[in-house]
């Protein structure tokens, strides 16, 4: 594709070999997790660290994990959390991104800096006052309460602003001449052309909220509203779980499974959307 760049791989084979070695090293914790989850003796012992399965694989750890945890419920709650967060985010960031990208208005710069400020203050840092706010709003111990602080995303707003700005204005002008309103332009011209940006943001948002732990841990008390990460810790720290590595590995793989499958299936689109969305 870029033959001029071949010089980067000047000693091409050497670079490839080095990278393969580095990547193997990088993958060991993950590979170990896979091996450990199928190991019959999952409580430790000297050979436990071996990356090469020298045993008859068993599904015992998976069976215990399924029996010990309320996985369907946790999956459901995490799924509600992730989709509920993303759905609102997509609306707010598209609207705000559009205003910042295409309209000039008094105070735009100041508002932009105000948004920038939020980018640097991740919600977990404001955990104490945000819990107080949730109590006042009657959202404490609800999934809505876990979602709400993320509904206005400065990161997403920037990303959409960036993405909209890469689209030539001619497209919109043509639509406006045909009598389209601003929201028709947004809905039928800008958003379809911004799919890479929307996809990249959705991936970042879903991965973040699927794996988030501290904030849901603090907001939720009711076991019926527990999400996957909190569930994993509660059962991994249970009586026997604390040193049952097979069980912990199996549970962690459960949580990862949907992200893992989605990533493997859409790998190309994923990397492409990241690269062409102007995430920089």
């Amino acid at each position, binding site marked *: 594709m870029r033959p001029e760049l071949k010089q980067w791989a000047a000693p091409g084979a050497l670079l490839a070999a080095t990278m393969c070695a580095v990547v193997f090293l*990088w993958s060991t914790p993950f590979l170990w997790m896979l091996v450990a989850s199928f190991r019959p003796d999952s409580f430790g012992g000297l050979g436990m660290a071996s990356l090469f399965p020298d045993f008859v694989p068993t599904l015992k750890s998976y069976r215990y994990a399924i029996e010990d945890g309320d996985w369907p419920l946790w999956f459901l709650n995490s799924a509600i959390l992730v989709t509920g967060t993303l759905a609102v985010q997509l609306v707010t960031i598209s609207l705000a991104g559009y205003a910042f990208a295409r309209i000039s208005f008094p105070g735009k710069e100041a508002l932009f800096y105000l948004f920038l400020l939020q980018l640097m203050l991740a919600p977990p840092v404001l955990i104490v006052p945000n819990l107080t706010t949730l109590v006042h709003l009657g959202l404490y111990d609800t999934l809505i309460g876990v979602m709400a602080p993320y509904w206005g995303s400065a990161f997403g707003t920037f990303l959409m602003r960036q993405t909209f700005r890469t689209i030539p204005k001619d497209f919109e002008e043509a639509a406006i001449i045909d009598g389209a309103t601003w929201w028709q332009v947004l809905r039928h011209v800008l958003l379809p052309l911004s799919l890479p940006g929307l996809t990249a943001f959705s991936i970042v948002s879903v991965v973040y909220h699927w794996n988030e732990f501290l904030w849901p841990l603090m907001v939720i008390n009711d076991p019926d509203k527990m999400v996957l990460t909190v569930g994993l810790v509660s059962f991994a720290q249970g009586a026997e779980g604390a040193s049952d590595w097979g069980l912990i590995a199996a549970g962690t793989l459960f949580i990862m499974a949907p992200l*893992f499958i989605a990533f493997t299936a859409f790998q190309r689109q994923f990397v492409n959307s990241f690269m062409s969305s102007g995430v920089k």
Partner: protein
Amino acid sequence: MDTPSATKTFRKIRLQPYLLLLPAFLCLTTFTYWPMLQVFLASLTNKKRVGDDGSFVGAENYLTIFTEADFLGALWNNAFYAAGTVIPSVLLGFLFALALRETTNLSAILRSALFFPTLVPLVGAAAIFIFVFMPDIGLLDYYLAKLGLSATNWLGNPDLALVSLMALTTWKNAGYYMLFFLAGLQGVPQDAEEAAKIEGANWLQRLYFVIVPMLGPTFAFVVVIALISAVSQVDHVIVMTEGGPNNATNLLLYYIYQQAHEFYDLGKATAATVVTLAALLTLSFLSLRTMERKVHYET
């Protein structure tokens, strides 16, 4: 008084952009700007838990935490942790992107393998890394022993525990940052590199004089998100060490979490939050400024 010109000026300011910003802004106000104010006000009181009124005590909480070994330790630990996670994970992310920038089948597989740690939930990774760092039987010691090195109690040794957490963070984040650099590298114009090559620049010179300056904005962005994550992620501390041994892994957010939810001292928790926010803003601002100065924008 209602002159035509006044009406005209009023009409010129259209409401539409403000309405478009409103939903996002409402959320940011409720969960960022308003709490910042609240946290500052609460830090001046002796509130004990959520719902308490508390009375005004001025700077007392600040004086307390700044003379307290636990807080100063957490501040120092977090500074050390930030430096020790941001630098290696950003550099590795950059090197990975550089090595795998060409799209081949092999590089696609290697990229995925490097990216996978990003998908592992931090609490899961933390639980797994407890085993990685176990003395004797753990993954690290097991293979180090084969190289003839002796057993180390990674998480139990105050000098090594925080470094062990840094290793976990670097492992988890470098692949994520690699994606941003891969995106950035696509924006480096071919002819600039080509021109440098014709001028006789070797690969190291091209890297330093062409690629790195062009990637200024990417570096600035990635460093800032890495800094933010160094202050706002605490799952691994909760799962692996609970701040120990001997407070060696007590990070700012863990300190805040403990003060608020274990020791019920909101005054101290909020004062620590204000200090954390100030540090975070200063560092983000400084890194953006420094990096932007080195940027060479295309015109």
